[in-house]
């Protein structure tokens, strides 16, 4: 009886001590967690929210939205909607708000920007007119108000949240009736771009493994002093600006550059090979920039592989090649996995290198994120593309965790 009691109190005490330890550990990591939350999770959350946020139309065209709520979207909108629109536009206090509304609608229908701004600036005085007369005035002001797509855009965006940015990122859209359909071939860009982003990243990762593995192996067999010296050479590009390295590649790879002159001198080709402003140039430069990320984890894993196993295998009658591939290589899998993941995830976000060394068909998703952020100033679309990139990357990572069996993890 008393022995059991002692056991439980002992367990309870042990539990208390354990808990205290855990709290202390938590307190120690708290600054880091707060830092991570502030610099990583909060912006990420803001990004996801911006991708679905849609206040521009719902906040300004309140009455129009109500007047359009029962509309069948096949015939002309009710007259009440025309007069509600004029009321709403006249109620906008600042031009800036009208500008934001015009920009939002223009992303849905090209031309809405000038339509909204012209009508807003006209400040139509319709107080004493009937709804039907307001419609006439509006159509006289700009006949485009008779076209349905503009009204669809207003009706569709009469809610503070929208799936449209995300749908567009996946080459889908909501039609006038609200059904989700595929966009036409001349609008469908992003699935091809996403696929291209992953395929370029995969090729870069593969080439990095093929080049990095033998190099890291050679480094791991050198004496510490020589290995350090060689490591400095591997790391040297790290200390050079990416732009400088890209400029150097342009000099080397251009039509009359060193590489082409060498190829022609040796008689390998008669005319210059196009190495620049295509996929090849992008991959060459990206491999060069990302190679250290592959070599470093590989090297550290290879250093820890004891040479005895391969020797034992050879002494037991295995051929050196078979021993290398069946005994040595499996022990370096964690290094390949870590390096591969690092290179792959870093290259998914590449922007400058493809922008300067690739053609129009070699741009990766980040290029379009930058374009929507800086040029179009359509931040909803930029955030939606970013979210798609984030989600697909996380999905790939979870697949890797599940089937990779490696103990490496990022979280």
């Amino acid at each position, binding site marked *: 009886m008393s022995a059991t009691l002692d056991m439980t109190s002992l367990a309870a005490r042990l539990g208390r001590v354990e808990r205290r330890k855990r709290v202390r550990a938590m307190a120690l990591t708290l600054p880091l967690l707060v830092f991570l939350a502030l610099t990583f999770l909060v912006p990420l959350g803001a990004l996801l929210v911006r991708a679905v946020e849609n206040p521009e139309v719902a906040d300004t065209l309140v009455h129009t939205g109500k007047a359009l709520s029962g509309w069948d979207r096949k015939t002309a909108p009710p007259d009440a909607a025309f007069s509600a629109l004029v009321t709403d536009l006249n109620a906008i206090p*600042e*031009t*800036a*708000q*009208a*500008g*934001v509304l*015009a*920009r939002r609608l*223009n*992303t849905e229908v*090209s*031309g*809405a*920007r*000038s339509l909204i*701004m012209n009508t807003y600036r006209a400040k139509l005085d319709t107080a004493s007119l009937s709804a039907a007369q307001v419609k006439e005035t509006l159509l006289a002001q700009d006949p485009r108000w008779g076209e349905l797509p503009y009204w669809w855009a207003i009706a569709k965006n009469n809610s503070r949240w929208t799936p449209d940015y995300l749908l567009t990122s996946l080459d889908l859209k909501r039609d006038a009736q609200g059904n989700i359909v595929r966009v036409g*071939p*001349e*609008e*469908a*860009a*992003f699935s*091809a*771009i996403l696929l*291209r982003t992953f395929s370029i990243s995969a090729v870069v990762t593969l080439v990095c493994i093929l080049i990095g593995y033998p190099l890291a192996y050679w480094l791991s067999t050198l004496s510490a002093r020589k290995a350090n010296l060689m490591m400095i050479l591997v790391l040297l590009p790290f200390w050079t600006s990416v732009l400088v390295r890209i400029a150097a590649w342009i000099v080397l790879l*251009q*039509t*009359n550059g060193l590489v082409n002159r060498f190829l022609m001198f040796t008689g390998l080709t008669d005319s210059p090979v196009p190495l*620049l*402003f295509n996929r090849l140039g992008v991959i060459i430069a990206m491999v060069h920039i990302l190679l250290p990320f592959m070599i470093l984890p590989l090297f550290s894993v290879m250093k820890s592989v004891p040479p005895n196993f391969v020797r034992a295998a050879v002494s037991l009658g295995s051929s050196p090649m078979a021993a290398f591939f069946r005994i040595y290589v499996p022990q370096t899998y964690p290094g390949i996995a870590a390096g591969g993941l690092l290179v792959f995830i870093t290259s998914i976000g590449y922007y400058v290198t493809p*922008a*300067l060394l690739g*053609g*129009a*068909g070699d*741009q990766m998703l980040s290029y*379009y994120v930058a*374009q929507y*952020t*800086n*040029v*179009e*100033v*359509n*931040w909803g679309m930029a955030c939606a593309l970013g979210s798609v990139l984030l989600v697909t990357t996380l999905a790939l990572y979870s697949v890797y965790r599940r089937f990779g069996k490696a103990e490496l993890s990022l979280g």
Partner: protein
Amino acid sequence: MKLKPLLIAIAGVLALPVMAQSQLTVVNFGGANGGAQKIAYFEPFEKTGAKIVQVEYNGEQAKIKAMVEAKKISWDVVEVESPDVSRGCDEGLFEKMDWSKLPPKADFVPAAVTECGVGAFVWSTVMAYNADKLKTAPVTWGDFWDTKKFPGKRGMRKGPRYNLEFALMADGVAPADIYKVLATKDGADRAFKKMTELKPNIQFWEAGAQPPQFLVAGDVTMTTAYNGRIDAAQREGKNLAITWTGGIYDLDYWVLPKGTPNKDLAMKFIAMATNPTEQAEYTKHISYGPTNNKALPKIDAKVLALLPTSAANIKTALQFNTVFWADQGEALEKRFAAWAAQ
């Protein structure tokens, strides 16, 4: 005792914002054009006592938007491209231009006078080639598309802007009708179809410095280019030449970000930079046209012949339509991305 210099240094750093009162941050695109502005506008302005800090950017309106939204304006005067003037004005990113402090409106070319911005200079996107390598000069955009008569690659800006207009001109549309045709679905289809014809021969450029470099390196036979960049290469002794036929001219503007604390000084700067004497001086350093017509008599004939605004050069040129691109730009950019992926 040793703390004293440190304290003085700290006090000095703290006093910086106070001294910054007579300091103006002017933002432009840098390069050869930034250099010309420095000589023609910044240096004379600094003689009046204020200091100018020159900042370079790449036309990202997002940066101005972020500043205005955060109410932390560190840019006083910004050079922006034409589509951004009306768009930024509509969205409340810029101060309204105080025309009472500038030269009379009637002196300016009509496009230079807007609600929020005043035209800074006129530039043009033109066809350029290396006169050392090409014996017969290309004359029209049809020649640009003719890869049999002029074999070799063509440099074009990455994106639909200018290219779709040039494609329609090559397809026989008169400059005056370009935007009317391009606004229709059939017209856009026609332009992209013409682009597809040339696609295997196009080498796209991203930055304005690239086209002259492509020409000098022999990567392309002909290219579209900003006329000032070709001019800068000519000044360096490169034998590059311009075909002005069917060029697209456009203005860059001076604007003030909304809420700039140095509005008075900024207006003084813009007034000087739109003054006839200073604008005439500017054209000597880069071949971009003045926006103030009173500057024209002060420019000598040799310089004038190189400007996009000279009578001979503007005759067959097309004015870039900002309203069209503000409306259709985003859709066409996306279509261009889809076209490039095919």
